[in-house]
């Protein structure tokens, strides 16, 4: 299963990319699976607070993913 992952603000800066494609996700992958993969590639992300969105809506970490989903990791927002 393939998903697109988007990163923002401090997460984006630490990871060094604003978007990546994850190709070989298992069929039961969740948002937390994605986060764990990113942390294994970039240990600097560990402990950073982040909410998650799938296809432009907030989701809990145990949300199961589907082929083609757009997953976003969102540090605490500070707009306004």
């Amino acid at each position, binding site marked *: 299963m393939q998903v697109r992952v*988007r990163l*923002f*603000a*401090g997460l*984006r800066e630490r990871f060094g990319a604003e978007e990546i494609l994850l190709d070989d996700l298992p069929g039961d992958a969740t948002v937390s699976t994605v986060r764990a993969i990113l942390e294994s590639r970039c240990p600097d992300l560990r402990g950073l607070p982040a909410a998650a*969105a799938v296809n*432009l*809506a*907030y989701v809990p970490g145990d949300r199961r993913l589907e082929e083609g989903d757009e997953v*976003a990791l*969102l*540090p*605490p*927002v*500070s*707009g*306004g």
Partner: protein
Amino acid sequence: MNASFVLTRARIDVGALAPEVRTDEDGAVATFVGTARRTSQGRRVLRLEYEAYEPMVRAEMARIFADARDRFRVGEVRVVHRVGLVPIGEASIAIAVAAPHRADALGACRHLIDRIKETVPIWKKEVFEDGAAWGGDRS
């Protein structure tokens, strides 16, 4: 309720909003403008930089407007948020709400800015003389 939302890299024309929302059936117009402060948590700020997850910002604003529509009886609502560089003293966000009665105009204006600060995926970077920080104090 007729609501519009704009994300822009240009300077926000704060004074233009209120006259645009009012009609002769409105008795009240409430506005809120958030501006870039010179000082944050005791440090001197040089400028702000805002980053947005634009398609989700639009989706989230649609949800926030739908919720406001259920809670308040208002006429026209406009929200403009700036992204990119915002110099000190300029507006990062402007909200204008017109309504027949003041409680709805004031209540909706406050509800909108509170919800926007809570859930809309936009991030502020404060740039100081000796570094930068995401978020900062979010009040």
